[in-house]
Structures are given as structure tokens and as C-alpha cells.
């Protein structure tokens, strides 16, 4: 059911205001919904109301990493531990819903006539944790600091398209871009662009507008967040306190959950899922996401110069087997293009490429590479890449192709092997917008164009889609790009990997979000503890 969060919020408000089933039906029918569908929806809304979120309580949560580089500076947020803390203490201008469309947050309203000049109207009455009101100056500071190299921003490449940011009214900020981008609000909804206070240099106090305030923050050890009583979202957050720690050991995280020391743990190993599901009192939140691990075949050196080799490799993935065995079923099949099925711009009309050893053999023979050993670089930091490489090696041997799988340590893999090796594995985390993903990894002049795949027509389509404000036109442009990558791109993408989080059954309100586990790291303001 394609139920927007806006509608859910409206329904909840109406229910709390004492609406009955008939009122709800009238409301939904007024919204142009078919009677049967509206009936079903009203019923779900009523059951949802039966488990009204409860206020109060304290939970302990463990992320998968902790270290001295833990930070509360949004520009330097690097992993889920940072993002989760960020979502406790800060807000973004917009929030991304489950279709990854931007919804109002600190910006009550945003619009653009030409996708190049964007006007954001800020919400009235929002205050920072220290009591100061949110002003356009804070937004200007928060956005422009990403452009300064010394900030060390992870989002600098994205921020470089911003030309100017200026306060154009008491509650209005205008952003102009160097080139039009219809996805600017989506980009500003990502973790690194959370809003901080103007002039902040030391971020360890975590002064933001978010649902929780910092009580304690010790990098590499833990953070304690306490409820922000003046939070601008009425009724939120539900919890009084959240302690967040990072435990890098998979087993220790799950044991901490099972022993009752933790209420929510990130990144459960797929092999532990059964154990958690079979233990009464615990559950697993599975989040199908856009994360993928892929084979990169560079088109400027090595065997990848030969398009027949690339096609042979793409036909060598036994995707169903990889999904079942390597990911233990916690993945969705991919089709050698990077936009996952949950995304609003996914092109479902593209036929799935099958596992076809005969076609692979045909293309491999045609490539004239028979008899040569082909080194393939893999590493534990590219999730499942070693397992995928080994399965491919077996399949390759059966068509006479000799893949030489080279396991590399995780340390330094990204700087020394990824982007450097002729054939090797990469791993890409979910990106909020199709445009960001395609620009970073497929545009001809991008430094992260992994396969050095250069197609002027693709670049034209990309720029056209970026400047296009009409949804249907954009969708057809993105469909064309997906077909191009599927047909002759240098990446073999076997599957999209789901995120798995473990939780105690007492913790309610968890729902999957395609940007990744822990509700795209934003669980803090959505979850509550069931009364005991």
C-alpha cells in the first residue's frame, strides 16, 4: 500500500482528536481513494492506534563501530554510529520518506521554478538545545562549511554544486546552484547536511534542534542522549533516554541483546538471524536497501577492455544461489544496474539477466582471452566479496575461465586496490538520490567512475534528468540510463544486500527504510518501549 507518511501523520492526529471509523473513511475518500482501499487503510490505522506509542523509558543501543574518530560534527559523519547520534541531536532541512522523496522538516516548505534557485522557508519557533532560535544564518553556515576544504567534509563533492546560500527573509534561505538539480532537497536530507548552529567550531556538545540533547559523549566509548522537552515535533520523542555504544564484534552485539543488556543492535550477521528469531522475546528488522557489492571491470585496462569478457562475467553470476547461500536469503536480486527495486526511479521493465554458462562460454571464447589467468581482487571490507568471488571462480572454471581470486586485507583496500585493479570488487552504500549515485559512479568525468565507463549520451541523459522537475519525464530518463548500464556498463551487480538489525520485542515502532538499517539511522525519534 502506497501510504505516505504525511497521510499517516494526519490519520494519527485525527485519531487522537477522537475521530471514528466513518470520519476516517470520509477523510480518505476526500483524498480521492477507492472505497475498498480506504476501508482497509482505516482498519490498519485503527489497529495502529490500539498500540499507541508510550512515553518514557530508557534503551541501550549498539552500533557496529566505535572509535576515536566518532564525532558529532555532521560534516565528518562517516558511519552508522555517527549518523545515529546525528539523528538524535540534529535535524535536516528535509526528511526522506520511504520512497526517498523529500518531506518537510526544519524547512516547512521548499520550491524552485527552474531547479537552479531553491527557496527554503524555515519552520517558525524551532529552538536549539541552548534555547537560541533557528535562524537563516544557521542554515547558511551549515551548508557553506562543506565547501571549505579544511572542514574535511565527507559531502564536499556534493556541496560543490552549491554556488551561493543566502538569507532572503527572516525565515527564508535561498540556495543557488551552479547547474540545475531537481534533487537538491533530497541531497539536503542526507546525514552530512544536518543543521548546526552558526559559528560552531567545537561540535562535541552536539547543540542541534533534534529530539534528544547530549548528556554525555565519549568518542569510542558511548553517548547518552536525553529527551529534548522543547522538540518541535509534537509528542516526540517517546523515549526519555538512549545510551548508544559501538561494538565491533558481531557475536558480542548479539549476545548483549540476548542477555538483555541491549535493546537494539545494528548489523546482525545473517547467520545469527535464525537464532534471534527462534528466541522468544526478540525480533529482526530486515531492511531491503540499495547497498550492493559488485565486480568492477575497468574498460581502460586489462580484460575489461573487451566487451565480450564483461558480458561473460555478467552471465556467470548465479544470482539466486548467491542470494540464498552468501546472503542467507537477506538480499534482493540485482540486474547489473545500481537502482534497487524499492527506489521510486527503479525501472522494473528491464528483463532479469539469467545465470547462463553457455552464453558466458560463448562470449568468453569470442573475447579471445581463453588460457590467460585473470586476477580478481576481493576484500572483507567489500561485504561478501570474497564469497561471491569464490562462487564465481567455480562457475568460471566450468567454462574454462581461470579466475585468480586475490584476497586483500581490509586495511587500505579502498585507497590501494579499489579503483586501481583491472578486475576487482567494490561496495556501494545506498545513496539517497538516483542522481547522486549515477553521478558519482557512472558519469564520464567522475573520479569514482569505477569502470572508467565513458558514454557522452549517458552524461546528457543524466544532466537532463537532473534539471527535469516533471516526475514522469525524469522516470523515463532514469529508465534509459538503467538500460544503458545494464547492457554495456563495466559493473556486474549480482544483488542488493539487506540490512539486518536485532531488537527486543519490547521495542516498538521500528520500520524498514531503504537508506539502511536502524530506520536509516533515525530510529531515535520513532521508537518506543512497550509498557511492562
Amino acid at each position, binding site marked *: 500500500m502506497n501510504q505516505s507518511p504525511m497521510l499517516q501523520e494526519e490519520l494519527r492526529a485525527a485519531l487522537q482528536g477522537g475521530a471514528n471509523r466513518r470520519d476516517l473513511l470520509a477523510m480518505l475518500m476526500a483524498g480521492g481513494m477507492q472505497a475498498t482501499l480506504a476501508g482497509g487503510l482505516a482498519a490498519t490505522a485503527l489497529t495502529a492506534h490500539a498500540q499507541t506509542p508510550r512515553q518514557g523509558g530508557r534503551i541501550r543501543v549498539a552500533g557496529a563501530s566505535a572509535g576515536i*574518530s566518532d564525532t558529532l560534527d555532521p560534516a565528518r559523519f562517516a558511519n552508522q554510529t555517527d549518523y545515529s547520534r546525528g539523528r538524535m541531536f540534529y535535524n535536516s532541512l528535509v526528511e526522506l520518506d520511504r520512497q526517498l522523496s523529500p518531506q518537510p522538516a526544519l524547512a516547512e516548505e521548499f520550491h524552485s521554478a527552474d531547479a537552479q534557485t531553491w527557496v527554503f522557508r524555515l519552520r517558525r519557533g524551532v529552538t536549539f538545545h541552548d534555547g537560541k532560535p533557528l535562524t537563516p544564518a544557521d542554515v547558511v553556515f551549515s551548508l557553506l562549511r562543506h565547501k571549505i576544504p579544511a572542514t574535511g567534509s565527507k559531502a564536499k563533492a556534493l556541496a560543490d554544486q552549491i554556488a551561493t546560500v543566502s538569507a532572503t527573509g527572516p525565515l527564508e534561505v535561498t540556495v543557488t546552484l551552479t547547474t540545475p538539480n531537481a534533487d537538491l532537497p533530497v541531497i539536503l536530507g542526507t546525514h552530512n547536511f544536518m543543521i548546526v548552529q552558526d559559528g560552531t567550531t567545537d561540535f562535541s556538545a552536539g547543540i542541534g534542534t533534534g529530539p534528544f540533547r547530549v548528556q554525555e559523549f*565519549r568518542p569510542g566509548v558511548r553517548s547518552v542522549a536525553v529527551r529534548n522537552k522543547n522538540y518541535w515535533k509534537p509528542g516526540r520523542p517517546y523515549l526519555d533516554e538512549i545510551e548508544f555504544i559501538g561494538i565491533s564484534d558481531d557475536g558480542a552485539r548479539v549476545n548483549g541483546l540476548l542477555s538483555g543488556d541491549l535493546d537494539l543492535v545494528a548489523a546482525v550477521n545473517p547467520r545469527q538471524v535464525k537464532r534471534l528469531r527462534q528466541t522468544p522475546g526478540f525480533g529482526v528488522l530486515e531492511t531491503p536497501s540499495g547497498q550492493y557489492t559488485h565486480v568492477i571491470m575497468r574498460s581502460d585496462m586489462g580484460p575489461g577492455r573487451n566487451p565480450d569478457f564483461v558480458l561473460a562475467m555478467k552471465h556467470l553470476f548465479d544470482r539466486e544461489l548467491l542470494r540464498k547461500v552468501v546472503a542467507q536469503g537477506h538480499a534482493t536480486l540485482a540486474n547489473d544496474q545500481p537502482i534497487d527495486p524499492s527506489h521510486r526511479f527503479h525501472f522494473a521493465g528491464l528483463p532479469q539477466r539469467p545465470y547462463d554458462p553457455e552464453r558466458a562460454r560463448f562470449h568468453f571464447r569470442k573475447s579471445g582471452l581463453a588460457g590467460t589467468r585473470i586476477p580478481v581482487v576481493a576484500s572483507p571490507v567489500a561485504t561478501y566479496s570474497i564469497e561471491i568471488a569464490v562462487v564465481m571462480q567455480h562457475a568460471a572454471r566450468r567454462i574454462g575461465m581461470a579466475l585468480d581470486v586475490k584476497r586483500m586485507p581490509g586495511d587500505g583496500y579502498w585507497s590501494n586496490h579499489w579503483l586501481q585493479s583491472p578486475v576487482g570488487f567494490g561496495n556501494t552504500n545506498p545513496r539517497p538520490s538516483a542522481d547522486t549515485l549515477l553521478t558519482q559512479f557512472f558519469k564520464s568525468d567522475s573520479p569514482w567512475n569505477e569502470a572508467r565507463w565513458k558514454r557522452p549520451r549517458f552524461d546528457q541523459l543524466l544532466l537532463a534528468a537532473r534539471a527535469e522537475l516533471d516526475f514522469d519525464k525524469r522516470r523515463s530518463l532514469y529508465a534509459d540510463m538503467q538500460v544503458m548500464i545494464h547492457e554495456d556498463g563495466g559493473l556486474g551487480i549480482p544483488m542488493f544486500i539487506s540490512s539486518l538489525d536485532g531488537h527486543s520485542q519490547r521495542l516498538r515502532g521500528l520500520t524498514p527504510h531503504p537508506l539502511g538499517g536502524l530506520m536509516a539511522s533515525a530510529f531515535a525519534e520513532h521508537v518506543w518501549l512497550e509498557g511492562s
Partner: protein
Amino acid sequence: MNLLILRLLLGRLALACVSLLVVSAVVFTITDLLPGDAAAAQLGQEATAESLAALRHQMGLDQPAPQRYVRWLTGLLSGDPGLSVVSGKPVGEMIGKRLPASLLLAAITAAISVPLALSLGIASAMWRGSWFDRLASSGAVAVVSVPEFLVATLAVLVFAVQLRWLPALSYSNPTASLTDMLRSFAMPVLTLCCVTMAQMLRMTRAAVVDQLKAPYIEMVRLKGASPTRMVLAHALPNAIGPIVNAVALSLSYLLGGVIIVETIFNYPGIASLMVDGVAQRDIPLVQTCAMLFCAVYLLLVTLADLVSIVANPRLRHR
């Protein structure tokens, strides 16, 4: 005897300074040889040439390596180990926050494992060849042969997940009550005792047995001393040298070598700080931790030598 101790101390001090200098140079070179640097580690997959250069400049990594080393060394000599290149905080402060937790864990473990290992070792030596001796010796070998991650994980599965007696994670929570603290320390201390006790026990047994075979023990027995007196008053003082050295080795491990226990029990100690420093290529932090571990090791070994001189009648009366 005082002259002997003074000479030993001065010699050790000079040697310690040289060792520390050599260790610092070796650690610096090796950390510098590792692929990537702090800027690359921090930016990871998102690194571009431009952002790398900016971050390197900000971290001071664009200066040549020898210059960075000399600056760190002169800083350390004046009492300031410098700033962490990753977090920008003073290294001294970062270590200062973690060190008490590590020292506490080490102290509790030592307070339990040392007396237990020594008494078990002495008892085994006294009743050597008996079922008790065989049980203690083979038990020690069995326990030390099981890797500590297995001991720790099994302990968690049994005591935390199944029985729910003890918490699976240890926090250094200052507000916790004494019982909570004891409960959270139980499993880390148990695991560490398993690892450290075996060597002390076996060394004690071997050293005492060795003395018991010596001719002067026969003399002691002939003059009619009880077996307890024979071991405690006559054999043990002569065996103390190897025993305190084994104890010193085990204790020095408790500070920097407990990374597995810190990881499994999420204990915020100093070993994980250093490992983290290596992963993030935070050279000042790694260097300072290495200096600290090295200094503690030298201190413990020197103490062990002092104790063996003071306790040994033959050395004492020279």
C-alpha cells in the same frame, strides 16, 4: 646490598631510556610504512585528491616524517605527547580517560590471579606427583591452551545469555553500585585469570620443585623442620627470582594485551584505544601508547629483579 640495588637501578634507567627511544623510532617507522595515512583512513572511500591534501595539511601530515618524529619526541620530553591527528584532542587527555579503567581491571585481575596461582603452584610443588599436582598442572595447560576469545565467548553464552546471572557487557559506569560493578567485572576478570594464571602457576611449581631437590633442603629436613616451614621459609625465598619474573610478565600483559577481552565485553580500556589508533593511523596516539606499555614493562621487570634480590638470602647478605 644498597650499593648493588643502586647500581642496578642506574643501569636499568639508562637502558630503559635507550629502549624507549629505540621502540619509539621503530613504532614510528612501522606505523608510517603502513599503507595509507590518517587522512586516507578518515575519508575512506570518499577521498579525493583535493580533500586529502586539505586534510593532510590540517593534520600536519604534509611535513616530512623525520620532522614529525622529532617534533613529537621533543614534545614528549617536555611532558606533552601532542595532539591526536584524528580527533584533534590532546593525546594525554585521551589516554588519561582510559587508563584508570585499564588499571582497575589489571589490579582486580592481579589481586585474584597472583595469590591463587602462587598458592596453587606451591601446593603442587609440595605434593608433587599426587593427584592434586596432576590435576592443577594439566588444568593449567588445558586452560592456557584455550584461546581467550573462546573462554570469553563461552562465559558470555553460559552466564549472560543462558543463565542471565551476569551482564554481557562491562561499562565503567561511575554511578553503578558495588554489586553491579562486581557483576560486570566477573567475566572479564575470569577470562584474564584463565590466561595469566597458568604461566605463573607452572613457573612457581617448577622453581620450588627445583629448590626442593637441592642438597640444603635435605639439611633442612634432617634438622626436623615441618614440610610447610621447609617450603615457605627455606625453598621459596630461593625460588622467588623466576617466580616474580613470571608474575611481572603476566602483569605487563594485563595492560596492553587485553584487546580481545576489551572488545568482547566492550570494556573501554587502553588496548582498544591503541588498536583504534593504528587503524586510524593516529601516529601520536600509537606512539604514546607504545611508550606507556614499554615503560610499564620495564618498570615491572626492574621491580621483579629488585624483589628477587631483596628476597634472596644469598644476594641479600652479600
